[in-house]
């Protein structure tokens, strides 16, 4: 458990996740208030990573649900294992006729059978999908619902029960309530707007690109072989590139790739030529690279 905001920053740092006071505050509050968090922000700022690191720093299991178009409750909540049910009825045919032997009329037989029906709709034949797993898990878990904006709006409706009451209703069995409330993180890339009902149940966190100091810290933590001088210079260059009207701004992970590449090339300081040659680690569109080359003077100026 995190004790306060400062200790949240510290424990996440131990998991090699450097976060701002904003991120830490929301994570800390979400834990205290037992509320889900909706994380939004540009791609590659570490939204998914946050979920993983929260799980490992709290010593909880991580259950991840990747959303996509057409994801339905059978893939997210639970599904009846029809084939297994069928197989069991086939195998138990003899047993069934044995039970039914004494019943004289058809309606007696039906009554008898419906008395046994529960067997086939029990947890034995239920495949728990990520959300039910998180709810039924005997240990506290972190449930990461990734890229919720990719799912359909119908799917959001299924989530509402889970997000507010941490329970799943299965008509044949009843309501399954969580023993330990899972820590729920939802991430979104703003492909579409979430419904108000969902937002109301969540705390909201917008993660933007980090400040220079923060990004320097991230790079030196993740790429320790990279020298301090190089870190400072390359992060400054990245920040200047983000100010240009790029098709896709370089994300943190791309900054890290660039830092790794430059270190492998044996750079100790950022040299313009080498930087230009390795720009493709940072920028993924030809147009963006050209634009960066055009502005090389400003980007690499001291």
């Amino acid at each position, binding site marked *: 458990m995190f004790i306060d905001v400062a200790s949240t920053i510290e424990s996440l740092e131990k998991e090699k996740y450097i976060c701002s006071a904003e991120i830490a505050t*929301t994570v800390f509050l979400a834990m205290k208030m037992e509320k889900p968090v909706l994380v939004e922000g540009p791609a590659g700022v570490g939204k998914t990573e946050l979920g993983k690191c929260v799980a490992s720093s709290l010593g909880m299991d991580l259950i991840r649900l990747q959303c996509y178009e057409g994801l339905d409750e059978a893939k997210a909540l639970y599904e009846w294992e*029809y084939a297994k049910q069928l197989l069991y009825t086939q195998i138990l045919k003899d047993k069934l006729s044995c039970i039914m032997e004494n019943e004289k009329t058809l309606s007696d037989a039906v009554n008898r059978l419906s008395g046994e029906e529960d067997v086939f709709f029990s947890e034995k034949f239920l495949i728990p999908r990520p959300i039910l797993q998180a709810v039924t898990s005997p240990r506290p878990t972190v449930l990461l619902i990734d890229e919720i904006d990719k799912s359909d709006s119908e799917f959001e409706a299924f989530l509402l029960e889970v997000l507010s009451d941490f329970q799943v209703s299965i008509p044949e069995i009843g309501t399954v309530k969580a023993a330990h409330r899972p820590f729920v993180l939802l991430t979104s890339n703003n492909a579409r707007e979430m419904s108000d009902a969902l937002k109301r149940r*969540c705390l*909201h966190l917008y993660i933007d690109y980090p400040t220079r100091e923060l990004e320097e810290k991230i790079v030196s933590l993740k790429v320790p072989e990279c020298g301090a001088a190089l870190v400072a210079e390359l992060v400054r260059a990245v920040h200047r590139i983000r100010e240009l009207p790029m098709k896709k701004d370089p994300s943190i992970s791309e900054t890290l790739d660039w830092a790794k590449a430059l270190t492998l090339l044996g750079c100790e300081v950022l040299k313009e030529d080498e930087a230009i040659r390795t720009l493709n680690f940072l920028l993924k569109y030809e147009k963006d690279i050209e634009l960066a080359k055009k502005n090389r003077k400003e980007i690499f100026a001291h």
Partner: protein
Amino acid sequence: MPRERDEQHDIQTKFLDFTSVLKDAGVTISTVEVLDMFEAMCHVDPCDRDVFRQSLATTLVKDYTDIPVFDRCFAEFFEKKSGQKGFDFNIFLQDALNAETSGKRTGMTDEEMDRLMEEIEALVDTVIGENPEKSPQEIIKILLENPQESSSSGALGQLLFNVRSRSPEASMDTDMTGRGDRADDDDDFIEGMVRERIRRRVFEKTTGRVINKRDEYLLNRYIYRLTPEEVKEMRELIKRFGQKLKNRVSLRKKKVKRGGIDIKRTLRKNLQYGGTPFRIYRRDRKIDRPQLVVLCDISSSVSQYSRFMLLLTYTLQGLFSKVRSFAFISNMVEITPLFMEMDPERAVNSIFSDTNFTYGWGSNYGRCFTQFIREYSDSLTSKTTVLVLGDGRNNNQDPGLDSFIRITERCRNLFWLNPDRRHLWAWSDSIAELYMPYCNEMKEVRNFLDLSEFIDKLFVK
């Protein structure tokens, strides 16, 4: 412990004031969010500015496009008051509890103090209610300097009189000697306090409204009347507004996504039931995104409109399957490549500094339409929506009506947005009315809201 409960109440009121500032500024906040905010406050140390700010933001603001608005409200509400030193929660707390300490100084009882505060608040609220158009400074002026302008005139004097007639008795009981001086001091003190309180109350009640007003004002302002500073402000607003529009439209699109039965998928999925189609799978209906061709007159009379139109179109680019844009004065030029290379704003700027749009003198719609049909007719398909933005002032030249009709025949829809007032469409050198019968609609646009409403409507079938 009644005393402590009162303090809590005072602080709660302050927080509620803040939420109403946000609401006034246009942020949607429901009761759940307010309750969450109070719960969050129990868990964090409010003296740390970042933590305090984020605790409010994370519980109250659920739409990231509202974050800039939140930041402005937060700065106005919490930081301006704490003086130049930035944020200090203790000063804020003192503010909230100010009533109590001043009560001790004036010798008024708590109830009297509470009643006074309530009276002040009621007075301020009525004056604000009566003058919805006035700025906070003007309202303070009405309240403190010339109360004749408001129907509650003299209310302040009355208020002070009441207080004065109340307080001497209180101080007389405690201290008889040297009463004259002290009474004057106290009167000044009370008057100062009342004035201060009024100022603060006006400020709190109007902060949000001022921000929202500003947005509304800009959206509703005649575009050609915008000053250069306002244009700058508009850009930020267009970004925010465009994003909201985009979110709304994309949500709407998602809802009508389901189409006919997907036989292939249904069969494959139902193999596990021995081929009996227990569960039906439907095909996703193709999202029908319009293809857009924008023709913008960029002559000086409509250039500002074209600028915003282009900015808005390209902010919403993702909603259309294809956008091609053309600019003309008397020569039609495709400007789509510009928008591919740079962000909309730079692109728009570079268009207006370019010069190869003119051929001869003034706007020439006829020549441009003919040229468009000759050179760019490949951009027109049965799925294309054409938007023309211009005032149709053709400088008495050939209207090129044949070419225009051919454009309308080759696209699905053609809409004409005209910045001129309706009664001017056939006036002087304007030939807008000549084109009008061939358009699906010719619409008068005056402000940014008209433009965005129009775009919004494109997506409703």
